[in-house]
């Protein structure tokens, strides 16, 4: 009786690992859903996937644990990040609800579904627990290989066809045929002159002594920032840093210091006292 009980429970170390990493996995999943920016969601999901890889290793699925890290966090999540980078300009969700009450209904559906699923698992009779030790006796990878190339060989062959189809499909979907000739530099400059706006090159971004980064707008003579000086991508993302107020404050401070140095204002009390003491 005790032997079966011992086989049915795992070691304390694994229990500790489960509770700590399981918490991290759930927090990562929640962050994936509730983070506003897609990049943050992707990073949280990558964290959850790494935790799941550790769980695979703990469950004796050594091959799958490594594949999880290499394929999921290494390839798929990086693909996600690339697409977020491509689509990034409007990646932040608008928080306006288009369907009234959809969010609360969705949460309610999720809650009901979760209760259903958890109750189903709780009611299932999961009494027999064999442990993976015997199946892994000849090595995990060898065991998987002998199954894949005998029992599941047709599914494995079909997987190859699926992967080729997916690769071709992705290429077809993202490939764009150029329907018109690219305009030459001469034609572009002629068009600029004909339109009569911005005939010279666009002005450069901020050119103060302290700020020459590309995301800082250059200032017009009256001190207001000029949108034209910043790249269109940054403008659309709203990533322009405005330092015009800072520059004006710096100038004011400089003028005040210069005035103090030149003695145009009355000398502060501390200075006066030292002068009197020296006399």
């Amino acid at each position, binding site marked *: 009786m005790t032997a079966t009980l011992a086989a049915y*429970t795992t070691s*304390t170390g*694994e229990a500790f690992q*489960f*509770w700590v990493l*399981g918490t991290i*996995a*759930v927090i990562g*999943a*929640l962050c*994936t*859903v509730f983070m506003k920016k*897609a990049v943050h*969601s*992707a990073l949280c*999901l990558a964290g*959850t*996937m790494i935790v*799941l890889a550790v*769980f*695979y290793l703990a*469950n*004796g*699925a050594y*091959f*799958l644990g490594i*594949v*999880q890290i290499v394929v999921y966090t290494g390839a*798929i999540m990086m693909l*996600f990040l690339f*697409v*977020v980078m491509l*689509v990034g300009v*409007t990646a932040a969700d608008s928080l306006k609800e*288009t369907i009234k009450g*959809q*969010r609360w209904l969705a949460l309610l559906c*999720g809650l009901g*579904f*979760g209760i259903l*699923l*958890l109750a189903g*698992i709780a009611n299932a009779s999961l009494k*027999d627990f064999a442990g*993976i030790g015997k*199946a892994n006796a000849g090595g995990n990878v060898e*065991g*998987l290989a002998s*199954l*894949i190339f005998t029992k*599941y060989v047709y599914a494995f062959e079909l997987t190859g066809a*699926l*992967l080729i*189809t*997916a690769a071709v*499909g*992705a290429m077809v*979907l*993202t490939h*764009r045929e150029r329907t018109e000739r690219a305009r030459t530099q001469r034609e572009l400059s002629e068009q600029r002159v004909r339109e009569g706006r911005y005939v010279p090159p666009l002005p450069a971004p901020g050119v103060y002594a302290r700020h020459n980064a590309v995301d800082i707008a250059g200032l017009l003579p009256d001190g207001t920032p000029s949108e034209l000086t910043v790249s269109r991508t940054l403008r659309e993302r709203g990533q322009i840093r405005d330092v015009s107020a800072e520059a004006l404050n710096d100038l004011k401070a400089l003028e005040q210091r210069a005035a103090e140095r030149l003695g145009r204002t009355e000398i502060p009390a501390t200075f006066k006292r030292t002068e009197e003491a020296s006399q």
Partner: protein
Amino acid sequence: MNPVNYLYLAALLFTIGATGVLIRRNAIVVFMCIELMLNACNLAFVAFSRMHGNLDGQIIAFFTMVVAAAEVVVGLAIIVSLFRTRHSASVDDASLMKL
């Protein structure tokens, strides 16, 4: 600890992913939530494989991973081409076929 806890965790992650699919409207995040659901299923398969003491569950999880990789490639290509034509990755905007 009872290994059934892995199943509870998988169910929880699957539920969070499903809720995310319903709540979010950014197509990329919806896609990530689908990946989360697939991963939760994989965890359940691996836990079942350990409970039953054979490797079939791990084989199924392996095939799920392959299919997920193919699905991600095609799905992200669709999102990129949608974004090119509509300049938006929101799933609410893609209502071109609506009357």
